[in-house]
């Protein structure tokens, strides 16, 4: 859950913005290839006010790309399939000849249909979690609805965390403290579900048949699929300083989790014991929350905190075992969204809608461009 981050696919960086644009940037030429603005939605107003209410078309979910297609979910409850060739020619959307489509999430029982969670791409389908409490499966080619799940969290509805797939089951965490398994074929609930006292704040991650997920009670839980009791919760006794908002990343038995208390924790996946932790700071030495998901690039773990400090840990080096970063690169701007990394460069969108390419080896910003110069 968070703000639309970057992905890189075939040399093109894709990103969504809070003002409702999907932007494609060529990572080689450092130019905007195309930008598509999603039209605002007008909904009937309540009360005595005249006219309709304009619903913002903010994009919170990170786009996903497959071949020539880019898929994105919007806060106004739409899923768009954009063809990169059609968009670079600025053709009318949706252009059927280029397999483009648009899907409107139903407004279920007057509940918001906003899409905040990242879309999940399966083999031929896309899975969409909505603020109306349902998960939807869409045909990737035509945007047709395959199935819709029952309402998973009747109390809060908001499914703002992204689901994950293992085998033929899709797993999703809810704000009322459940982890549900859904059949990928039918959307029906699997036999197993997990119930916790506290709601789940972060998107779950699966590693070795175990689900790792952050909770609103400031713990990180490890739940073996098929069991009713967590294997462990971290920290063991007193809770962390804040929520584990970002999903953790896992490599070779080590789970790395960023926390809103500003710390990065490295935890043993089997025992749940802390291996090391590191308190990230801002340039004035104050703590700054880790909102963005950490990213792995080979043996490097990259973490960015809200104040825009990029920390690089070499997981193979001795320093990492002591929780010391190999590199610290300040970019000096607020970062909340997830980011991606490829070929030694990390692509970060800041809150001012600039894209930064950070060169890890050189330890500096290689280039940056605003997302507002071209339409």
């Amino acid at each position: 859950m968070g703000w639309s981050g970057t992905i890189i696919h075939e040399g093109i960086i894709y990103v969504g913005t809070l003002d409702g644009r999907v932007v494609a940037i060529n990572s080689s030429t450092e130019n905007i290839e195309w930008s598509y603005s999603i039209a605002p939605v007008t909904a009937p107003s309540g009360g005595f006010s005249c006219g309709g209410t304009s619903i913002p078309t903010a994009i919170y979910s990170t786009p996903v790309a497959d071949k020539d297609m880019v898929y994105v979910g919007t806060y106004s409850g739409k899923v768009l399939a954009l063809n990169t060739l059609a968009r670079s020619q600025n053709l009318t959307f949706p252009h059927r000849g280029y397999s483009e489509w648009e899907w409107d999430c139903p407004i279920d029982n007057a509940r918001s249909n906003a899409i905040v969670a990242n879309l999940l791409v399966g083999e031929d389908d896309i899975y969409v979690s909505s603020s109306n409490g349902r998960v939807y499966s869409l045909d990737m080619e035509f945007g047709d609805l395959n199935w819709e799940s029952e309402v998973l969290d009747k109390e809060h509805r908001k499914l703002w965390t992204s689901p994950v797939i293992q085998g033929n089951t899709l797993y999703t965490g809810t704000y009322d403290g459940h982890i549900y398994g859904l059949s990928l074929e039918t959307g029906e609930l699997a036999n197993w579900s997990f119930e916790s006292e506290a709601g789940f704040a972060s998107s779950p991650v699966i590693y070795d048949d175990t689900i790792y997920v952050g909770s609103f009670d400031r713990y990180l839980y490890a739940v073996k699929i098929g069991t009713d009791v967590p294997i462990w919760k971290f920290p063991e006794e007193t809770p962390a300083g804040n929520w584990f908002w970002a999903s953790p990343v896992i490599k070779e038995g080590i789970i790395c989790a960023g926390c809103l208390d500003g710390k990065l924790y490295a935890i043993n996946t089997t025992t749940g014991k802390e291996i090391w932790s590191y308190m990230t700071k801002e340039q004035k030495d104050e703590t700054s929350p880790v909102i963005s998901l950490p990213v792995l690039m080979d043996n490097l773990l990259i973490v960015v905190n809200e104040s825009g400090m990029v920390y690089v840990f070499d997981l193979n080096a001795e320093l990492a075992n002591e929780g010391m970063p190999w590199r610290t690169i300040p970019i000096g701007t607020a970062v909340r969204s997830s980011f991606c990394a490829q070929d030694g460069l990390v692509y970060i969108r800041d809150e001012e809608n600039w894209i930064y390419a950070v060169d890890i080896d050189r330890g500096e910003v290689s280039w940056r461009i605003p997302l507002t110069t071209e339409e």
Partner: protein
Amino acid sequence: MVEVWNLIIGNPVLNVLVALSQILSGQFGLAIIALTVIVRLISWPLSKRQLKSSKAMQDMQPKLQELQKKYGKNQQKLQQETMKLYKEAGVNPLGCLWPMLIQLPIWIALYQAIMRALATTPENLLDLAQRLYSWDIVNQAIPLSSKFLWLDLGQPDPYLILAIIVGGTMWVQQKMTQAPSVDPRQQSTSRMMTMMMPLMFGFLTLMFPSGLALYWAVSNIIGIITQYFFTGGWGYLKFRSPFQST
């Protein structure tokens, strides 16, 4: 300035509201009602003064009628004598406005607390994480449910029910406390205020989150009950102004 506000009023109100919600079985609506009662209890010394003033005004009505008979044709003299009478009795005819003005920061803090606590956007949810105290009771309450009776507390009431309750209770409370004035202009102003304020708040109810309107409604009802028992009746609600007959 914003940081000071949040430190002293904004964050404490938010955390108390969230903690109350946990105590009251996760019912955010009940937490708002409980907070309203707490606010009314804290402001009781002020309310008591206002009620005393209101009672004194009520008791003065026969004397005011006498003045009206005596100086009815000389408005200036009538006004002077009336003000003298008020001064002697130590009452302020506009005293009922003070409790409302003092409640204004609470309304603002409560509005912010409701919007923050219910976290209708990811920004709100992240902002909430930064504002919550590390109390267990607070962290166990998150995330809150916005459902209460027929209301979604983070959204305006789609029906007119809450608007009618807020407007109606405010009108009753104002009628109970608003003393008639000897000055026709002041009388006309206060009559207009008695109508305009309930209408305005009824209208605001249609636009603001119903959680805030719930606070207004409960606060008004508590005001009516305390006024009824303190002054021993419906006050000016049943009292016909002597000046209306002229």
